[in-house]
């Protein structure tokens, strides 16, 4: 509904043509209201499902409202109680996710730096190898990866989850190399002149300058490990060693004759989502811009 020349004067300043301020304000109110309504519709079912986890088991439910009919934290208590013991799986997942992220991020930073800033024979070959293998989809690699794990005796072993997370993070290498390319070579040369050895260089110059990249890759790795279902589901068969996502998926498929199972699964699914949500809240400032920058390049 705008006329084409309405954008020229900035809002709020005294203008020769009075109605246009009003028009701009009206437009602001309309577009903001529209965005708010759409966002509310979009997020409404999510609010409702969160609300439903605060009900009592025998409450008469109305799925269309997020306000629980009979407020209770029953499902949350049950979830961490004797019977379901989801805290066990949460701790397993925390362990694996933290170990994978720490090792993978360190390996990515080291390799990304070497591939971006150091010259050595075989560098381009190694890099094209990563890019080539990066294109292979999970579907192709799933079963052979499992066979290799079985041969290495890593089934039911968390290292079978952690190590492929390090060696399979080709995207992390790719992204980290892009970040490392931005570090000025003159800075590295100057430090070498001053007598810094290669390790000091990495520790004192490269790492502090690659903080944003390390943050993005650590966040992606944490989120990926935490959210993953398929690989931990296949590799970990021992019930006590299960990670959170396979535990929820299994509980969801075994709800036989237990009225509590379904709401507890739902509650667990929401609690498990708090981790990626918190990560997103923490990193969102640079997250979107970094990823958007990566696709433009």
């Amino acid at each position, binding site marked *: 509904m705008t006329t084409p020349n309405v954008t020229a004067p900035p809002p709020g300043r005294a203008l020769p043509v009075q109605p246009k301020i009003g028009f701009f304000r009206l437009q602001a109110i309309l577009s903001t209201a529209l965005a708010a309504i759409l966002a509310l519709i979009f997020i409404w079912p999510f609010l409702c499902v969160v609300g439903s986890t605060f009900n009592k088991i025998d409450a008469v439910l109305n799925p269309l409202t997020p306000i629980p009919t009979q407020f209770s934290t029953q499902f949350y208590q049950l979830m961490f109680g004797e019977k379901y013991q989801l805290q066990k799986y949460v701790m397993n997942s925390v362990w694996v996710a933290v170990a994978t992220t720490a090792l993978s991020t360190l390996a990515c930073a080291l390799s990304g730096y*070497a591939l971006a800033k150091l010259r050595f024979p075989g560098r381009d070959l190694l890099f094209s190898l990563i890019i080539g293998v990066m294109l292979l989809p999970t579907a192709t690699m799933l079963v052979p990866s499992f066979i290799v794990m079985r041969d290495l005796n890593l089934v039911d072993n968390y290292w079978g989850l952690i190590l492929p997370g390090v060696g399979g993070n080709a995207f992390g290498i790719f992204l980290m190399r892009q970040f490392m390319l931005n570090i000025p070579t003159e800075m590295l040369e100057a430090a070498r002149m001053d007598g810094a050895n290669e390790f000091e260089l990495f520790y004192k110059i490269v790492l502090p300058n690659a903080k944003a990249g390390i943050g993005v890759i650590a966040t992606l790795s944490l989120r990926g490990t935490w959210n993953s279902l398929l690989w931990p589901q296949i590799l970990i068969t021992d019930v006590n060693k299960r990670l959170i996502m396979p535990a929820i998926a299994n509980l969801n498929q075994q709800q036989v004759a237990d009225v509590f199972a379904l709401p507890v699964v739902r509650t667990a699914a929401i609690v498990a989502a708090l981790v990626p949500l918190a990560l997103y809240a923490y990193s969102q400032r640079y997250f979107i811009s970094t990823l958007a920058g990566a*696709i433009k390049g």
Partner: protein
Amino acid sequence: MASMAVSRSPKKRSAIQRFFSDQTKWTPYLFVAPFFITFAIFTLYPMLRAVVMGFQESLGYTGKWEWVGLANFVEALTNDPRMGTSLKNFVYFTVGSLATQLPCAFLIALLLTSRSLKAKSLWRTLFFIPSVLPGVTMGIIGGWFFSKTHGFANALIVAFGGPRVDWAGFAEYIIPRLLLIAFWQWMGNHAVFLIAGMSGIGDEIIEASIVDGATPWQRARYIVLPLLKPVFAYISITAAAGSLMNFEVPYVLLGTDGGARGKGWFFMTHIQQMAFGQFRMGYATAIGWLVFFIAVVITILQLRVYEFRLGKQEEAS
């Protein structure tokens, strides 16, 4: 210091000694080692195993293998109804996802970049949030949403006076259910990428169009939309590849038996079930290679489509 020692007596030292006396020569290899050693064991070696395994069949869970030649591929292509179902579901799901999500994402992106909008980042965050949720959570929420007795969808239908629908009981509802969940999960993500693309369009182009008297609609249709073609290409290529790997939501929502009347198979759930439900490891690997082949073909096709649209006359050739 070390390099000076080398230059003084280069002939007395072997090549290996010279290599290790110069730190700048060996440290790069040390730096890439942690990644490349794990990469070689856990990615490269399984890949080579995959090449062989496609032509083998495992004898149960024993670890023994039998050479079967092309039999796996022949069976997958001619004698496996689940493959047909998976392919059909993949096509419906991908085309349906793009057809529903992209236009809405574009409109939302236009709305969220309009100059008069207040609290832009809040709305952007709200639309983006579902895409960071775990696939398992989305599957569980989807299951609740389409539950027959206490689900959101049926409550809404009943509120408008309609009958309850048995969403899980009919094969026709499988794809629509998945499409709605996918829409909820990915539309905001696409919108954010489009917004990033729009912010890359120079102000002078937009201002020039304003001076030339273009209406907002004309501006969106003839200026913004064509300039966003690379972003659309990126989204649709990654979305197609992603829906080829679609696992978590179908697995959680439809279970291990392929959903209503076995019409809910996707490639990944099929592979998982073949390998770890029936222990046909070789056959599952062969399907994996076929999926890889499909991924390559659809990616090349899309690259062609998006390149050729830049110049219309090339399309004819």
